[in-house]
């Protein structure tokens, strides 16, 4: 399923991210291994989004390094990102999903056929020719996931993808993500939803105050969290 030149592991060393004088993240040292579904957890404002964007290259860092196992130009093409608020292009659903393929030179007919398959796979078969900005929130996010997966990335970042969705849409998307994980795609997902984390995570990165406080396998994290902040968070307390 995945190409031979693996872009992982990814190494973050001494990474610091700033904006408007404030330090959002760091310093952070982190290794992202080749397998699994990692959930990045933490209270709002902890720096989860910043961490994801730094890893994907959407945010510049003020210090430290972000190093993939291959040349950065190669690594850029093997990643995908699903945003918290799905970015819808002013096109039909099928054209939106096909867009990344066409962007990378795949011929239109083949791209549209693959887009159709993916749309059906995520449950968008009935809105194939609808105008993307007009479909429901859940459908939009499913479109975003399909659009992200259609290029067969090696790593998929998701920033709180189900934050604004109902239960049914959440379940449908989680199903797709689990299938993707089985297919060998590395998944890094930010969420503050404990239930979702328990359902999906193979390991957890706990972020608080711009720093990574814990990186542990999932069971360990939920059963025996080490830090008091993680403990409080799991218990459902407000963590500042």
């Amino acid at each position, binding site marked *: 399923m995945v190409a031979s030149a693996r872009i992982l592991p990814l190494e973050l060393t001494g990474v610091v991210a700033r904006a408007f004088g404030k330090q959002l993240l760091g310093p952070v040292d982190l290794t992202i291994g080749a397998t699994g579904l990692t959930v990045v957890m933490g209270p709002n404002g902890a720096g989860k989004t910043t961490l994801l964007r730094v890893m994907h290259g959407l945010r510049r860092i003020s210090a430290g390094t972000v190093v993939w196992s291959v040349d950065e130009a190669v690594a*850029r093409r093997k990643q995908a990102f699903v945003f918290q608020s799905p970015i819808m292009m*002013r096109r039909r659903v099928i054209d939106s999903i096909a867009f990344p393929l066409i962007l990378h030179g795949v011929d239109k007919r083949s791209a549209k056929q693959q887009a159709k398959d993916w749309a059906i796979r995520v449950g968008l078969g009935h809105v194939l020719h609808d105008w993307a900005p007009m479909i429901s929130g859940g459908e939009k996010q499913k479109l975003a996931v399909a659009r992200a997966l259609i290029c067969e990335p090696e790593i998929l970042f998701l920033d709180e993808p189900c934050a604004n969705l109902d239960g049914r849409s959440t379940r449908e998307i989680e199903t797709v993500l689990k299938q993707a994980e089985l297919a060998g795609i590395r998944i890094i997902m930010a969420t503050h939803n404990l239930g979702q984390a328990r359902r999906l995570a193979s390991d957890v990165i706990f972020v608080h105050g711009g720093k990574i406080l814990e990186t542990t396998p999932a069971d360990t994290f939920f059963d025996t969290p080490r830090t008091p902040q993680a403990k409080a968070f799991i218990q459902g307390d407000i963590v500042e």
Partner: protein
Amino acid sequence: MDSISSGLLDAFALILTLDSDLVEIVLLSLRVTVTAVAIAALIGLPFGAWLVVNRFRFRRYTISVLNALMGLPPVVVGLFVYLMLSRSGPFGVLGLLFTPTAMIIAQVIIVMPLIASIAHQTIRDLWAEYHDLLISLNASRAQRIKVLLWDGRRALITAVLAGFGRAIGEVGAIMIVGGNIDHSTRVLTTSIALETSKGNFAFAMGLGIILITLAIAVNLAIHSISRTERASTW
């Protein structure tokens, strides 16, 4: 008020009889303006988009200058083009003065900043929406421009039509570089100017009504064409 009503009658008479001079003038007006707007759009639309996605040192100044050029007085442009194309000027050997080509050149200069500026402003908003996605997908600069231009085409059509409106009603520049020569470079606006100066107000008004009708017809045609391509109420 009298001039307007007799002007309407004159206009109807000309249209009904398909007066050959009128047809010639109208066709030349359209030829000059449509050509100028097409060229200006071909340059201005991508340029406007390029200014959005490209970060360079003097970008802010360039955008300010572009916006300012929208207010270029057409007669000044006409004078400039005349000096360029005059036999005593740098491009005199081309022999373009007093031809429709000179008129097209002048109108391209007038209309291009307008189209580019409007395009820039509308595409800037679209870029704010698409920014993260296009960067995440590694779209090249050229690809970004292409996507923004295509997805933003509704608003860009408005920009082009604004350019058309400016050009079809322009008279100062094309009077100087075209010379308003009968059967050669005479168009609707210069005819109106001529008839007005002769004191033939009614007739000039009639031509004015024809000009306005023409502009409305073109706008309606463009809007109806673009509507059939859309799937929803965008």
